[in-house]
């Protein structure tokens, strides 16, 4: 198990992965996907205040680097599962934003026809196999996707995202043991944002680094700076390669922070984290800002190019909102479809 210093700025020079033309493209893609997640979620905040969201949303703002880093280490045919805080994961995995946004508004054009909503996005076309509102509950499912890939002789891997709180669920333990003894191609990514709702990780989680728990399964455990998209990418890349080689699972812990309340709109009366702590992270450890600064420092992607990415992304998000807003509500009969595969379902 190795733990990196969360506060370090490890990249004095351009990291090898981002060198060359392909590397620069990857860097731009990292920025683009982080911005997509960020702007998509900022748009949901507006929609919330406009009263257009049917329910509260759990935002990943602040956590984009870990999400994008891990997803970009996978290919299109690889799998992924998420949790209640997973608007960003399918986006980072490559899903189009229109149908995701429509899903958040409960529209007929939603990726789940309006039946899933914010906590249950899935886009099977990019390997996003779903998200669990029940904390931890998708960890076995991700493990099973790995089993299928292995049994079918495919080269796919599955990236399984969950939070620090979820690492205390029994299924975390059962699944990691299974993946370890069967050498399954699964990369477990714990986004440790320091809290499970109001409860600090240190008060109800027995180890400071969740990555330590890898020892219990005889698998690699790596803690990375979750605000550093390149660090997240590198750790995931190593884990994905290892999994693809048939060498089994890895547990990655990304130390990160959520900038907003547990759910947007939720009011917790008793303060459970310092305003100063929140400010320190949002002001100094914003993963998008940090990455943009580095891209500039490295002379890798200049202001104009970055501005272009921003503008393109803003346009995409605006289009997604427009698409969602103008989409019709689902036909009420939709509620009674998709419970079972029926004869009518095309095979």
């Amino acid at each position, binding site marked *: 198990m190795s733990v990196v210093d969360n506060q370090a700025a490890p990249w004095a020079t351009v990291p090898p992965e981002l060198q060359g033309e392909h590397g620069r493209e990857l860097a731009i893609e990292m920025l683009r996907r982080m911005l997509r997640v960020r702007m998509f979620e900022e748009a949901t905040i507006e929609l919330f205040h406009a009263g257009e969201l*049917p*329910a509260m949303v759990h935002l990943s703002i602040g956590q984009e680097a870990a999400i994008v880093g891990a997803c970009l280490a996978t290919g299109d045919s690889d799998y992924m599962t998420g949790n209640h805080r997973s608007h960003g994961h399918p986006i980072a995995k490559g899903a189009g934003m229109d149908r995701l946004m429509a*899903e958040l508004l*409960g*529209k007929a054009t*939603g990726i*789940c026809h*309006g*039946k*899933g*909503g*914010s*906590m*249950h996005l899935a886009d099977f076309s990019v390997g996003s196999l779903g998200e*669990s*509102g*029940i*904390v*931890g*509950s998708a960890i076995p499912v991700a493990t099973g996707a790995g089993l299928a890939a292995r049994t079918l002789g495919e080269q796919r891997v599955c990236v399984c995202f969950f939070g620090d*709180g*979820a690492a*205390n*669920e*029994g*299924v975390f333990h059962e699944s990691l043991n299974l993946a370890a003894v069967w050498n399954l191609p699964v990369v477990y990514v714990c986004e440790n944002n320091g809290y*499970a*709702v*109001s*409860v600090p990780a240190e*008060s*109800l*989680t027995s180890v400071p680094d969740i990555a330590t728990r890898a020892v219990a399964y005889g698998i690699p455990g790596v803690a990375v700076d979750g605000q550093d998209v390149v660090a997240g990418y590198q750790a995931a890349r190593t884990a994905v390669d290892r999994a693809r080689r048939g060498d089994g699972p890895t547990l990655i812990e990304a130390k990160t922070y959520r900038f907003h309340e547990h759910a947007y709109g*939720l009011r*917790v*009366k*008793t303060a*459970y984290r310092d305003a100063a702590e929140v400010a320190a992270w949002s002001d100094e450890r914003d993963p998008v800002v940090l990455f943009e600064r580095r891209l500039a420092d490295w002379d890798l992607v200049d202001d104009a190019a970055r501005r272009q990415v921003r503008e393109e992304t803003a346009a995409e998000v605006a289009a997604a909102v427009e698409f969602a807003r103008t989409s019709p*509500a*689902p036909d*009420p009969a*939709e*509620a*009674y479809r998709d*419970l079972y595969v029926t004869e009518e379902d095309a095979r």
Partner: protein
Amino acid sequence: MTTPQRERPRAEGGRAPGFLQAIRQAQYEEMHRDPTVILMGQDLRANVFGAAEGFLDEFGPERIRDLPLSEAASVGMAAGAAMAGLRPIVDLTVASFMFGAMDQFISQVAKSRYMYGGQARVPVVYRQALYYHGGTAAHHADRPYPMFMNVPGLKIILPSNGYDLKGLLKSAIRDDNPVLCFEDANLWGRRGRGGPEPEAEDHLVPIGSAAVRRSGTDVTIVGIGHGLVQSLEAATELEAEGISAEVVDPRTLVPMDWPTILESVRRTGRCVVVDPANRTCGAAGEIAAQLVEECFDALRGPVVRVTTDDVHVPFSPALERQIYPSKDKVVAAVRRALA
């Protein structure tokens, strides 16, 4: 199971506390009354759910505990603590989170006393909200009490107003058996969070006793949780048409107050059951089955169930509402029962 009580729902008089206030009062009073009562739940100390303000200061960290995301261990641990002298209250927050602890509920909570020939006492209360009809989608909106009704050894309360919630919860905390308290979140808002003064400390509603909320002669409507509200609304509407509906609130599902329900149906000869749970093998089905078995001769029409349709809870408001019982569905069911 006592003699039927004919109570008006207190909500009418404005004296009933809101749900959160009822919970707060019940837990506060009982924790003061008995030092072995402890309270555990996720995000309890920060009072995220609003019923535990000031509890940490008042009762201290040993008796007010936040729980990790470990539902199975939390449920079983509370049972073990109960067997060793505490009277824990566990706030599981949302009923959908019970599933992860199902083995502990069944194998440990419900079975220990019986398996060990009465050596164990398991005085523990599990509280959980039925968090449906709020756009939370399928993973937060289950109404799983019928599954637990299928498990012997548990008591189950499901009050329809704050007054009963307080009284039943206090009874549950004093009960030497495990009690599941389901709180229909659709009733939370009915009385404000800042309501009237705490009720008297000795306000207890006995477990196992139903209440007749409205007297009537043509049909009995049994309404569970929020279904009781819909039943009363339907009864009002039907009254205008000259149909006199009696409305019964079971309040406790296990043990069910069969004498009260049977007595009513024997009089009216017709019955509609309004139950927010899923239809198949739900609480409404149990009531219907009991009626056709125990008072067949008195029945003059079909026992009609108004339940949630057998689908999962969809996210979109455009889809969600229709799947639940509603006043209109109750009215239609009564017409069918009377046809």
